[in-house]
Each structure stands twice: as C-alpha cells, then as structure tokens.
C-alpha cells in the first residue's frame, strides 16, 4: 500500500534517488557480474576469445563433464546438508525447547554464529581427519591400530566431512530459528487444538508442528541451501580433488595454465547464479516471508 504517496516533486526525487542508489550499489553489481559471466562464456568478451561461440555451452553435454559432475555433487551435498540440518534442528527444538530458550543453554546456541567457514574447516579437519580427534578416540577404544584404518571422512568421494562440518555449524542456529518460529506462531495453541480434536501425539507433530515450522522456515532454508551450494572454504580444505563443488571448480578453471578454460569458469558461475536466482524466486513467491524477531 503506498503509505506515503509522493506529495511533492522533492519526495519523488528522493524516492527515485533511493531506488537508484539501491540498484547501482546492491542489485546492479551482481546482475552485471552474471551478465559479464554470460558474455564471457559466449565469447563476447575475453582476451583469448574470437567472437560469439556456443562451444563452451555445448561442452556441458559431454559425458564425463567436469561441470555436470560438479553441479550434481554440489546439489547432493546441499540437499543432504539442509535436510539433515533441518531435521536435527526441528527435533532438537521440539525436545529441548524449554531448556534451550534461556540461560546457559541459549547462550551456547549462539556460539557457532561467530564461526566462519575457514575456522569450521580447521575444526572439521582436526576432528574428522584420519589422525584427528575421532580417530584417536577410536584408537583408544581399540577399534583401529593405524591412522589409515580410520574411515575416510575427509578427502572422500561423498563429501561426508563437508556435510558434517556444515551441519555442526548450522544446527544450533537453525534450532534457534525453529524455537522462535514455534513461539511466534503459537504452534502450541494449534497443537492443543488438534489434541482436543482427537489427534495423537505423533499425528499432531506430523500435521501441525512440522508443516507450520517448515513453511515458515522455507525462505531461510532456501537461502541456506544456496549458501551450502556455493560454499568455498569448507570444501576447499576438506574435499577431494574430484568431485569438486561449484565455487571451487569456478576458481580452479579461472586460475589455470590453460587460459582457454576461462570461459568455462564463467559459464559455471553464470549457470550457478541463474539456478540460485530461480530457486529463490520460486520459493519466496510461494511462501510468506517469515519475520521472526
């Protein structure tokens, strides 16, 4: 609703200026960047380019394509991470809702918020490595005798270490999110209503709690999905050489001896950006934005 209809030309100018500033400084640059990446991938720009070409895009269809494998792997990792994190966080928020809303416990949930990707990767390496903390505990328990007998959790083909590290940092704040949504949306009242109408405990959870929490959290979970999809530091330090996640593939192809692979790097970046934009568009249009404060 236009609350302040512009009641003077100065007001209109102010509003236009604010919008123009936003477009120039916030929305413009990423769109320009994606445009540049697309142009590079089609050969319009680039020092080694020789005019418009679709050869780089055609390369996507090749069997054994680096790009396809990377996208597939990244999507898989992001899906597993988000699903796992959401499931754990919902469960924790339900089971420990009371304790975790106040005092010492609530404080603890804030700690992982200040952990950046590099530090998470460092801790992940220290814990999950073959000579790391878990391996040493296993050695203590007599389960292994040598570091190389410990199962490969990092530098592995499935990105287990990547997923676990992301989970470890995300579950606390997601738990916080679900606790707040639960309180704000008065989910308890609805559950009470459902129970009075005869629903069992499990049914109440399945049909009242979960849909309410997940629908409200969908925008945040989507943004988190996009973040894991494009994560860089954690896969860089904990991932195998192949398959690689998207951001790593982009940087690798960007900084190669073979400078003719640059258009491919930009292609991947552009494809990733378009995918993420479309995803956010779809989710945000269908669900109401949660405003939890």
């Amino acid at each position, binding site marked *: 609703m236009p609350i302040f209809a512009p009641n003077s030309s100065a007001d209109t100018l102010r509003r236009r200026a604010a919008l123009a500033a936003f477009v120039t400084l916030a929305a413009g640059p990423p769109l320009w960047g994606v445009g540049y990446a697309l142009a590079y991938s089609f050969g319009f720009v680039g020092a080694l380019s020789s005019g418009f070409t679709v050869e780089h895009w055609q390369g996507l269809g090749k069997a054994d394509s680096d790009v396809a494998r990377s996208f597939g792997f990244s999507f898989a990792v992001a899906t597993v991470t988000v699903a796992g994190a959401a499931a754990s966080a919902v469960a924790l928020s339900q089971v420990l809702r009371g304790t975790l809303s106040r005092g010492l416990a609530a404080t603890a949930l804030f700690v992982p918020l200040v952990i950046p990707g*590099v530090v998470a990767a460092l801790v992940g390496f220290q814990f999950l490595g073959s000579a790391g903390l878990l391996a040493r505990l296993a050695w203590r328990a007599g389960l292994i005798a040598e*570091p190389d007998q410990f199962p490969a959790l990092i530098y592995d083909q499935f990105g287990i270490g990547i997923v676990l590290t992301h989970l470890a940092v995300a579950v606390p704040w997601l738990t916080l999110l679900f606790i707040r949504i639960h309180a704000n949306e008065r989910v308890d009242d609805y559950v009470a209503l459902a129970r009075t109408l005869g629903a069992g405990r499990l049914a109440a959870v399945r049909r009242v709690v979960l849909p309410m929490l997940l629908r409200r959290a969908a925008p945040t979970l989507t943004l988190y999905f996009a973040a894991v999809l494009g994560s860089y530091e954690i896969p860089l330090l904990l991932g195998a050489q192949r398959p690689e996640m998207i951001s790593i593939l982009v*940087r690798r192809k960007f900084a190669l001896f073979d400078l003719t692979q640059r258009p491919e790097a930009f292609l991947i970046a552009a494809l990733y950006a378009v995918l993420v934009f479309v995803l956010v568009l779809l989710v945000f249009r269908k669900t109401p934005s949660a405003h939890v404060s």
Partner: protein
Amino acid sequence: MSVNSNHISSLPAWRRTLGVIVIGWCWLPVVYLALLSVARDWAFPKLLPSSLSLAAWRLAFGPGGNLGTSFMMSTAVALLVATLATGAGLVASRTFAYHRRRGWWVLAAHAPFVLSPVILGTCLLFLFIKLHLVGTFVGVVAGQFIFCYGYAIILLIGFWNPHLAALESLARTLGAGRWQVFRRVLLPLARPMLAVCFFQTFLISWLDFGLVAVIGAGKVPVLTLRVFEYLGSGNVNLAAVVALCLMIPPLAILLLNRRLATLAV
C-alpha cells in the same frame, strides 16, 4: 511437548544429557581451538597435548606475524561496511516498505547475498579492476557493502509499518522538519533494530573470506585470510590463534547482548 517443565533439573535424564551434549557441542570448537593454540607435540594418538606453550601466540603477535595489523584491518573494514550498510539499508528499506511493489523490491534485495562471495567476487573482478578497486581497502569495503546492503534492507524492512507512518505523518503535520522527525521520532524507535543490523552486517564483513580473498588480492590482510594462510602452510597452532582472535570479540559482544543475534528471515 509442554513448555512448563523447562528447568533443567526437572527434566528426564535423557533430555538433560541431550541438553548437555548440545551445549558442549556448541562450545567445543572454541575450547578445542584454545587448546590447539597452546599445544605442543599433539600428534596421533595422543588425546591431549604433551605440553603447553605460548610460542604460537608470541609468534602471531610478533613482527613476523603482524596479527595486530590484521586485527585493525578487519575491524576497520567491518566497522565501515556496517555503518554504510545500516545507513543505506535504513533509507532503502523505508522506500521499499512504502512502495507499491514492495515484494519485488525486497526480493531484489536478496540478489547480492544469495550468490557465493567467491563467485560474486570473480564475476565482478573485471569491473573492480576497471575502477581501480582491486587490492585496496576501499575495494574490499565496496565489495562487502554490496551484499551487506541487501542484507540490511531485508533486516530493517520489518521496522516500517502503518503505525510508524502515521506517527511520522502526525509529526510532520505538527510542523516538524524531515530531519527533526528522523532524529526525534524515528531514530529512538529504530535504535534496537539498528543495533541488531549494525552488529549483523559487522559480523558478515568480519567473517567474510571469499570476497576479500578475490577482490583484496591478498593485499588487505584481514583475519580470515591469515587463518587460511596458516592452514595452507600447515601451521595449525598459529591458525588456531588467529581463529580465536576472530571469534572471541563478536562472541563477547553477543554474550553481553543476545538480542543482537535476532534473525531476519
């Protein structure tokens, strides 16, 4: 699923244990890194280091480590980004909030920080080189400002509502100028949200790695880059020292005022 029994001692044992595990898990990285930063000779299969030493701390803050410079650099960048983003976000969020197509504009505000910082930096590198911003303090601030601005808008958009608009309108009718309305009516009401926004944009900038690595070209030595550098040379003790310097300040602020971590979305 009652909320009544929320004192930890009155919970069944398994809930208590779970609660303790969760608390422990959250604090574990900080505790572990603190131990790692003073550990000596902590190879497989030892569970605890053989001895402790402050060598890593001395090295980090010494002339070869220059951690003080990195700390100041990180602080300066983050403070500037947070100030600019919060200010610009306040103005833009108001314009969006009262706009007809509010939904689309807010969605557009998501554009900058939906992309991974590394990829955003790589795509913008050409533009930043042309603007002579690569490898400069200003360039890093500009780059981080791009996504913090979007984030600030999203965070602050909930502040504006018809009640507030009516208040503004009333104040204007009573003869107050625009600036007076801002200073005496809006600012006091906005202060808590502005503090949250400032802290969160500060944190985003403080913890950023991808963008400052690409745009800064290694010449803006913020703390996250130092952690990465030490990790890259196998120096886990030094990396742990810098990691702690990264985490402790925002953690301290957060512990003093938990409301600062209000989530936007």
